[in-house]
């Protein structure tokens, strides 16, 4: 097969892959990591798992990891979370006004804000 034919096939495959358009959807049972969610930006309701940090004023972020100061800080990529109930956290802990723990959250991602469903 010639190089020209291979290039034509590659073009057709890429074009077909692009026909769907838009961001991928992710509503499956396997949650995305925060980094995956920010990279793929699925439409619709998605499940995202990460480390949640809740501040005294109620503002919260879901973070890729946990930077190990005390209390911990948000580590790596993160999204703001609107409407997070600290009761949704796994093994929640509170110190110095910060509440933290792991969480799998379902909501819609817009910009860097995850609005819970």
């Amino acid at each position, binding site marked *: 097969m010639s190089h020209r034919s291979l290039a034509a096939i590659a073009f057709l495959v890429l074009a077909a892959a692009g026909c769907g358009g838009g961001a991928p959807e992710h509503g499956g049972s396997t949650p995305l990591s925060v980094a995956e969610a920010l990279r793929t930006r699925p439409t619709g309701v998605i499940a995202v798992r990460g480390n949640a940090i809740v501040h005294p004023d109620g503002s919260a972020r879901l973070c890729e990891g*946990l930077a190990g100061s005390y*209390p911990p800080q948000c580590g790596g990529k993160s999204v703001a979370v609107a409407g997070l109930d600290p009761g949704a956290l796994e093994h929640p802990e509170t110190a*110095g006004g910060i509440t933290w723990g792991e969480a799998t959250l379902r909501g819609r991602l817009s910009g860097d804000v995850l609005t819970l469903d």
Partner: protein
Amino acid sequence: MSLRHRGPTLLAVAAVLAVALTGTAVAATPSSAPVSNAAANTGKRSAATDARSSSVVRYWTAERMRNAIPIEDKLAKPSINTSMPASEKGAAGRVASAAPPALLQKGLAQAATLLPGSASAEWPGSSTSPPGSTAGKVFFTADDGLNYVCSGSTVNSGGKNVVFTAGHCVHGGGATRHYHTNWAFVPGYRDNVRPYGTWTARQLWTLNGWSNSADRTYDIGAAVMNTDGLGQRIVNRVGGQGIEWNWPLSQFVYQFGYPQRTPFNGERLRYCTGTTFSDGGHEGINCNMTEGASGGPWLDDFNGTFGWLDSVNSWVFWDSNGVRFKWNGPYFGNGAMNLYNAVANL
């Protein structure tokens, strides 16, 4: 005009110049000695007795170290403008440790023979001899107005005034965040006793990859410290660990920190030992230390007193029961070298 009054832009330029001027001098072969240029720093240091420094010392009372109320304080905020990833490797380099004569009289040759592995143990040595004196607790106020605790270690340099820690212990991480304030280091901390007092920083530094993007590959921080009330530099008081970069990722290290989350209380220096491994490209070590240990040093070729800083505690991981079992630290590559070179002679 002291350096801390200059604008961040000028400091950033100074940082770039420092990298350019010293980059090849220190990034040499193993066992290379630090470049000593103390005379050039004399006019730039800020006395710890100035009003701002004193206010930070007064701020961190024993009570506030446990439950603090934030106040406002501003530090100079340079960061390193490096175009190469921190993980990018170049020539291996090392800078040797240093011990002041007063500490050398305390039996520094005593090697640590206890190897706790991943179940951390309390450091059995004195808090007034390295590494008990070079390690310490870091206290700061973040831009959310809350007070936090980390760990850190002095590192030998020409300026004899540098503390290394994690990037998130000097800056919140990401373009919308800021450098921390009220930054203080207490070397040799033990049961709320501060054998060398509370030291304040005149400059905080991190890599752009951390301050711009919160990329943990770059989660390395450094503080250039003020002198104490007698005009002495911190490394000349407590000693300073060595530092290395571009060494193989897998090393047998002693990992130190002040874990504060339960089951620990942050009052005593603890350590784990183990061989580091690649964990998604970051350095990993199995250890049960908890939050508060961040910034604590990972010392390679540790002889019971000194070693070479090979990474710092960055991220903590736990199992399904919430038990902390692993830490990640940034690989010390060219980014760590650039950071060290930028602060070494300030």
